[in-house]
């Protein structure tokens, strides 16, 4: 695959997509099928970018910066649309528990202690229940998932795609710096999900210091290139 070498600091030359990509047929999709556009073929002009700067001693900030960059990268027009299910469940349960606490507080303030006890017990139990549900949901169902997206393209028939990205920080081990590990699961199907066109699972690990310099500025193009490659590999149905 020919690719123009891009200077690291991002000057104003735009990258042109590799010419061989559009015509290559992937092994697992039927021949003649148009492949949906992958993220690498959609260019962001450098003027649209905002610089990202984080505290590069804090692994949580590094991970969050990478996660956010990934979400932005994949949510651009023509690409995926984020499914907010996990976020909404967390918001719903969280706000409900806050309201329960507020209600209990208000009731306890208005009614004197002895009489308020049954209602305060009820509020407390409800709050513990909601908090437990939140924790269980986050641990078992949401897990490491950072982004869930879908896309529908209408080439010859309605093709639905669904992509899930999970990430975690690989902690420091002796002299190995902390690294960002991302796993991508991709499914492409049609006829309402009944016939499977492609399925891929990839994952990649890269040290944080390849995306962040010593000031903590993020090299977004490099990161996006890496993620874009992993996503396109998954879209081609590779499994790794």
């Amino acid at each position, binding site marked *: 695959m020919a690719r123009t070498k891009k200077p690291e600091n991002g000057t104003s030359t735009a990258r042109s997509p590799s010419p061989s990509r559009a015509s290559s047929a992937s092994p697992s999709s039927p021949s003649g099928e148009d492949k949906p556009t992958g993220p690498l073929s959609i260019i962001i002009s450098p003027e649209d970018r905002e610089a990202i700067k984080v505290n590069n001693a804090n692994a949580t900030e590094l991970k969050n910066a990478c996660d956010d960059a990934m979400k932005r990268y994949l949510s651009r027009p023509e690409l995926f649309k984020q499914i907010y299910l996990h976020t909404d469940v*967390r918001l719903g349960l*969280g*706000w409900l528990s806050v309201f329960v*606490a507020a209600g209990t507080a208000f009731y306890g303030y208005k009614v004197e202690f002895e009489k308020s006890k049954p209602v305060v*017990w009820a509020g407390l139990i409800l709050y513990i229940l909601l908090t437990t549900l939140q924790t269980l949901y986050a641990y078992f169902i949401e897990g490491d998932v950072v982004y869930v997206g879908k896309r529908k393209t209408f080439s010859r028939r309605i093709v639905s795609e669904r992509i899930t990205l999970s990430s975690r920080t690989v902690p420091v081990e002796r002299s190995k710096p902390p690294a960002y590990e991302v796993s991508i699961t991709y499914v492409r199907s049609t006829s309402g999900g009944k016939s499977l066109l492609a399925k891929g699972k990839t994952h990649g690990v890269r040290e944080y210091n390849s995306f962040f310099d010593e000031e903590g500025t993020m090299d977004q193009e490099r990161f996006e290139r890496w993620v874009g490659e992993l996503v396109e590999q998954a879209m081609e149905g590779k499994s790794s």
Partner: protein
Amino acid sequence: MFGKLGLRVFLLQAMTISSSLASPFMIWKGLSLVTNTESPVVVVLSGSMEPAFYRGDILFLTNPRPESEEPQSLYKTGDILVYKIPGKDIPIVHRVIEAHDFYSEIVPSDADEGVAESTSDTAQDAGRGGSQRSPRSDLKQLMLTKGDNNPVDDLGLYDGLDWLERRHIVGRVRGYLPYVGYISIFLNEARQLLLSRPGAFSLKHILYSKWRAS
């Protein structure tokens, strides 16, 4: 209106802040229910119990129900209690120097002559020994308290009452931590200071600047 990051991010951050307030509050309420007192942790504000407690000490209270099986659910002479006189806001922490217990029904018990009243104004109550009454919800107690460091008893503080009753008691001191209460004293003084300058540190301002900084 919500900037580049959108509504969901704002709601998430607002929820995180609200939860971080809701959680400690619910823990407090839970503790309050378990100890059966509206204020399981209090700060000593005066020196009337020196040398036992000094201003700035934190006290841990419980208020066992008379009918519960908890040991010593009866308040006895020598216990240190926190009480509130109705009509007065400030709780007072002093020691019981006299306690009279009444039960509304006469129930014959082992070492007992069937008398309804028992007076326990001696310092050592261990003499009750095997005739410790089973816990009963019809217990009525009349108590007199005095601060260790005060020259007179609390009768003048009772605002017309002759005795303290159980319903006035917030709880009995079961443990304490020295000095930690000064945090609460300073916070209270800071709060009074800030309240005198409204708008400078309003919660809205803090929430807004946190959100914008994201």
